């Protein structure tokens, strides 16, 4: 079953590669030797009376013994990795202005975006960074599917109310959450009119498995109990020039993603590039509830000329 799921595999693989690619640590010998060894200093036994050898858990789940002196180095390195992830995560990518376009005419609720997202961000099945909703605007209007990520507003109500700078906006427009800073007051959840934010009410999924992973603020991973999480526009992938998890896993060409400064968005399914301004102009693009003044960065194209049946019509069509 697992092997059949390319999304999950690629997510983990991507992350490992990404850690390896962190240039500034290239020179450190231990890291190369141990192959990004994640240390479990709190839980692993340190029984040796001389304290010379300690068991540690490697990234692929193997227990190995290393001298304690090296362990110190590894711990230090790990702190460095986390510091570096924090620094660049808070700074963002200069000169970029990310934007997403969601074509409602193409969505048939395949929910592959959700699966890819939940796998990448270690979410429980009921926790959504992106959720596909069945919308019906008024009594006689037609229903449609609406994928709803975080809109990464330019006037973000959630960031305004955060008391400790745990959620913040970066220069490239992304609104992120620092789970090492969040105090869990949930004011941001109350402030978001789009219900985009979720909370780790319990110990996060598989937290035991991921507990030694250095925290990446661009991925919100590993998730932390008692803190907020939400869609991050896959900030970790953008850095590598890759499209977000949801965008690239959609089978139906729903998502376009790109840089507004380049005026180009790329379709995650067809990899076709288009002018953002042209796409919006030609298709009557809009942002959701823009009257609230939140200035969302996610645009919708109206569900016109659909290629899939509207919500509630599937049964009819399957028997026809």
């Amino acid at each position: 079953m697992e092997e059949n799921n390319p999304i999950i595999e690629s997510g983990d693989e991507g992350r490992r590669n990404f850690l390896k690619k962190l240039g500034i640590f290239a020179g450190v010998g231990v890291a190369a030797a141990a192959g990004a060894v994640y240390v479990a200093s709190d839980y692993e036994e340190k029984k040796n009376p001389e304290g010379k050898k300690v068991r540690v858990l490697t990234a692929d789940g193997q227990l190995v013994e290393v001298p304690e002196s090296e362990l110190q180095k590894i711990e230090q390195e790990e702190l460095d990795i986390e510091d570096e992830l924090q620094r660049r995560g808070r700074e963002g990518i200069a000169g970029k202005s990310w934007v997403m376009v969601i074509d409602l005419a193409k969505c048939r609720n395949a929910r592959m975006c959700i699966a890819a997202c939940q796998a990448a961000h270690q979410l429980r099945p009921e926790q959504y960074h992106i959720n596909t909703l069945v919308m019906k605007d008024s009594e006689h209007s037609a229903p449609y599917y609406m994928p709803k990520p975080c809109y990464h507003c330019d006037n973000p109500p959630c960031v305004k109310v955060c008391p400790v700078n745990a959620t913040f906006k970066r220069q490239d427009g992304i609104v992120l959450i620092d789970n090492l800073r969040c105090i869990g007051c949930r004011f941001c959840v109350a402030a978001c009119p789009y219900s985009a934010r979720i909370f780790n009410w319990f110990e996060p999924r598989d937290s035991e498995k991921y507990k030694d992973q250095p925290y990446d603020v661009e991925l919100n991973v590993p998730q932390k109990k008692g803190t907020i999480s939400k869609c991050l526009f896959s900030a970790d992938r953008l850095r590598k020039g890759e499209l977000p998890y949801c965008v690239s896993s959609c089978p139906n060409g729903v998502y376009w993603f790109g840089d507004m400064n380049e005026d180009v968005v790329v379709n995650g399914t067809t990899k076709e590039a288009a002018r953002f301004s042209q796409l919006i102009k030609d298709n009557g693009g809009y942002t959701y509830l823009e009257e609230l003044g939140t200035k969302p960065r996610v645009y919708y194209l109206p569900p016109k000329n659909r290629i899939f049946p509207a919500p509630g019509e599937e049964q009819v069509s399957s028997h026809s």
Partner: protein
Amino acid sequence: MSRKQVFFTFLLSGFVVFGYSQGAWVVPAADKAKKNPVASTAESIGKGKNLYNTHCKSCHGDPGKNNGLPLNPKPTDPASEQYQKNTDGEIFYKITNGRGAMPAFKATLPEQDRWHIINFVRSLSKKKVAENTSEPANQADTAQAPMIATETPSAQDTLMAEGKLRLALGFEEDSKTIYARAFRVKGGKTVPVSMVPVEIAVKRYFRDLRLSEAGTVTDENGYVSAIFPDDLPADTAGQVVIIARIPEAEQEQFSVAQVEVTKSWGVKLIPQNMKEARSLWNDNHKLPLWLLFSYLGAVAGVLVTFAYILSLIFKIYKIGKSSMNA
């Protein structure tokens, strides 16, 4: 793990709904007999290929590789025998009306485009035949291509020629027109090559933006041209990188290194770091000054009052002390 399984079960069950008790896809006789009104030219096939990549590939996969999505029923590989058994009319009907997970394209794709796709998928079976008889790959396509001027070598000739296929970029500054040329060097002379699919693009972060029309091939003089849009943003210096290359889908057939030239044609990007201005949503040290001063003012007022009150109480204490001592 169980979550992944849940997901998969869900995925499958989702498609079971679509695929539920679907028998053979019967097409009305009149539709079945419909003939393709669009001639199977190289241009039509090229357009068809582009349309296929955009609208069909995500489910049907790469033709001939049988790598479509694992749905139920499985989307048929268009290069397969089973698929090619369909008449043009049948394929047209199925693209038009859809069924289950197969979308209906009648609203999104003009009829013309649907026929282009059919021309493309038909070319796949011919290609297979061509490969079997070890003839040049696109001979079948070019056989029906529009007339080629006699003074220029035909595509299949040039392909088999010895000189290496090359690309060059040329520019007309006033009109911001870009020319890409496909040619070979033969005996010190450049010989243009026609019918080569070439795209002109401008470099972007995730994918490059194509400026030439989809499916364009070089003309009899080996040229493809495109106009650079005046309003396209560039980097902070106003520079854009213009690229001529063979489209990704055609690269197996034509192996040519892409050509890049930097031009100062774009609209200069004036980088705006939105985090520079103070605002209510910015970081803690970027708070609006009015807020900072209001806060500090109020707190200072309270602290001064507290100090005053403490001084009064201390006086009470001192008065008592001195009189007790006295």
